[in-house]
């Protein structure tokens, strides 16, 4: 098993290299002059030229890329026009917020997706199956930002149960910083009131984020469960007296999960990139909002930083899913 993991990790390096190359190329190809913008509106010609040298834009592209790459490795991801600070520092502040949102959304999507998928497959062509299929198709079509607005309208504006935006009540002091994820940090600090508060702020955005992955996982789970139910070994197990509960829990679930797992992996990556809209609706200070502001200011370093971060996380997480796939599916692990 170990060499399987090592081989996959080694395979990761060229992908990350390719990723950095593509992000650099996109940064350079985008029209708009980063130097002029960095210099600011009332900068003189000389100042702009000096800055161009400082940015290293006068050097050939290959050298620029090399500087960019070495810079990345040494933690210099460029400076942001907005915060004037290094991009890496900003990412350290904003990334945990996005991760917390995506993890919460995926948790909801996976748990309910699997349950609903199983239910729909078992009660095949019954009214439950039919309504689950209809609702999941509608959920996939529901734009996240519109859903966010509706949730805000109902739960925050009319019913007043949830907060309108932000991550934590302003007055209350946040739990000590460990992971940067408020819910987890407050749990680590054993501070239940903060945990509940953080949860209350996380609820609406997480729900808005989780609807489309939930629907997709339901559809995938339903399809793979129906596939498994028709397998011969299910008939054998049933014929030899295995009760339905154990059949579903043990015999169906593990097999159906294997193919649904890849979707969960893919979705985590897509969600990372998709938080932009929900973050702007709920004023959730994550990398999505950070990227949007950077785009509005044509501030390239943060955009490239965010895109590279998401790309890297996406690739790494898919590797984890593949490894988990090996654990669940012995044929893959033992070759």
């Amino acid at each position, binding site marked *: 098993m170990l060499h399987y993991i090592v081989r996959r990790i080694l395979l990761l390096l060229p992908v990350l290299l390719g990723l950095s190359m593509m992000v650099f190329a996109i940064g350079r190809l985008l029209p708009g002059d980063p130097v002029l913008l960095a210099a600011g509106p009332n900068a003189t010609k000389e100042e702009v030229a000096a800055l161009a040298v400082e940015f290293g834009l006068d050097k050939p592209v290959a050298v620029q890329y090399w500087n960019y790459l070495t810079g990345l490795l040494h933690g210099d991801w460029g400076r942001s026009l907005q915060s004037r600070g290094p991009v890496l520092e900003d990412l350290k502040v904003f990334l945990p917020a996005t991760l917390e949102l995506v993890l919460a959304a995926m948790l909801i999507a996976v748990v309910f997706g699997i349950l609903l998928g199983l239910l729909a497959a078992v009660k095949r062509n019954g009214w439950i199956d039919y309504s689950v299929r209809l609702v999941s198709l509608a959920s996939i079509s529901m734009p996240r930002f519109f859903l966010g607005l509706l949730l805000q309208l109902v739960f925050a504006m009319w019913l007043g149960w949830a907060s309108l935006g932000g991550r934590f009540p302003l007055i209350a002091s946040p739990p000590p910083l460990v992971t940067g994820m408020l819910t987890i940090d407050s749990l680590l600090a054993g501070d239940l009131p903060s945990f509940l508060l953080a949860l209350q702020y996380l609820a609406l955005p997480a729900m808005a984020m989780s609807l489309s992955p939930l629907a997709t996982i339901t559809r995938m789970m339903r399809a793979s469960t129906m596939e498994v139910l028709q*397998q*011969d*070994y299910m*008939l*054998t*197990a*049933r*014929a*030899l*007296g*295995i*009760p339905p509960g*154990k059949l579903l829990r*043990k*015999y169906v679930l*593990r*097999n159906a999960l*294997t193919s649904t797992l890849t979707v969960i992996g893919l979705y985590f990556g897509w969600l990372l990139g998709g938080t932009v809209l929900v973050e702007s609706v709920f004023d959730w200070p994550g990398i999505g909002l950070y990227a949007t502001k950077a785009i509005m200011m044509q501030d390239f370093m943060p955009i490239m930083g965010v895109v590279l971060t998401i790309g890297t996380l996406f690739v790494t997480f898919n590797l984890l899913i593949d490894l988990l796939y090996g654990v*669940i*599916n*012995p*044929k893959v692990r*033992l070759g």
Partner: protein
Amino acid sequence: MSSTLDQGAEMSLLHIQNLHLSMHSFEGDAHVLNGVELKIEKGQIWGLAGETGCGKSITGLSISRLVNTPPARYLDGQILFNGRDVLKLKESDMRQLRGREIGMIFQDPTTNLNPVLRVGEQIADVAYEIGRIAPEILGLTATARASQRKKAAQKLGVDMLERVGIANAAQRARDYPHQFSGGMRQRVLIAMALVGQPKLLIADEPTTALDVTLQAQVLKLLSELVSSSGTAVLMITHNLGAVAQICSHVAVMYAGHVVESGLTQEVLSHPQHPYTRALIAALPKPGIQRGTLSTLPGRVPNLIDPPPGCRFAPRCAQASHECTLAVPALVGKSDTHRIACVHVQPEVFA
């Protein structure tokens, strides 16, 4: 539908009476079983032979009520297992029978074991569930705790694997199905089917997916295990050779109807029904020249609008108008040889 119990005769293990079943599909409703008649006593080893699509598998599955309704629908008839009509049982009662009273083996060993669970665990699961109803199988009393039952089930599982000829069964039990050869997997399935010491074992084409040498071994293993425990067997196959090798009795089915049944020795050496005779004639015998295999003209009837009366009539040489009037009943002086054909009178044959 005669629902009265079969008074006089001592209660047989399995008695399928006049079973009718239709299967709904895109094109329409196919009348798959057309009055199946079959009676199996304790210890007997029956072969259920017929071409593909004659309904033998569905009959086997119906005994353990594993046919999904819909799309299937039982139109008529009974399946009496130890006198109780299986079609009327509550699902929970039916589950008590499966594995404990009725064991089943299916055709393809490569797909009948759960790929993601260890072999030992799968057989232990079966033993554990049976132990819940009949603890004595695991050598425990009813008051045994679940953990005891689990350990005993695992031990019984390993023992069974050994009895079906799997070397150092304890280690092998930890392996996964894909680490076993086809023949070994079929042995595991046999072990799983017999771990509950069932009264009846239904084997649906158990050797069809194996090559010839393995077939003989598996059949030998099956007959040894069964004879020692007195388990009755219903082997569903289209291979008359296999029937001849281990079955004491045989029933020949055509288009959802048993046309001839009785002692294997009797039926195979003196086939009376035209279809059985044609079936046996089609068997290649050693020393025949090339090109002389006789074939049966015509095709299996379309079951959506089946021919009236005897469904073999369209392909039968002695067919007459009388054949088309009604489905001929399976009659015979005794259970040793019964025939369903208007033109063959019972007294004619022994």
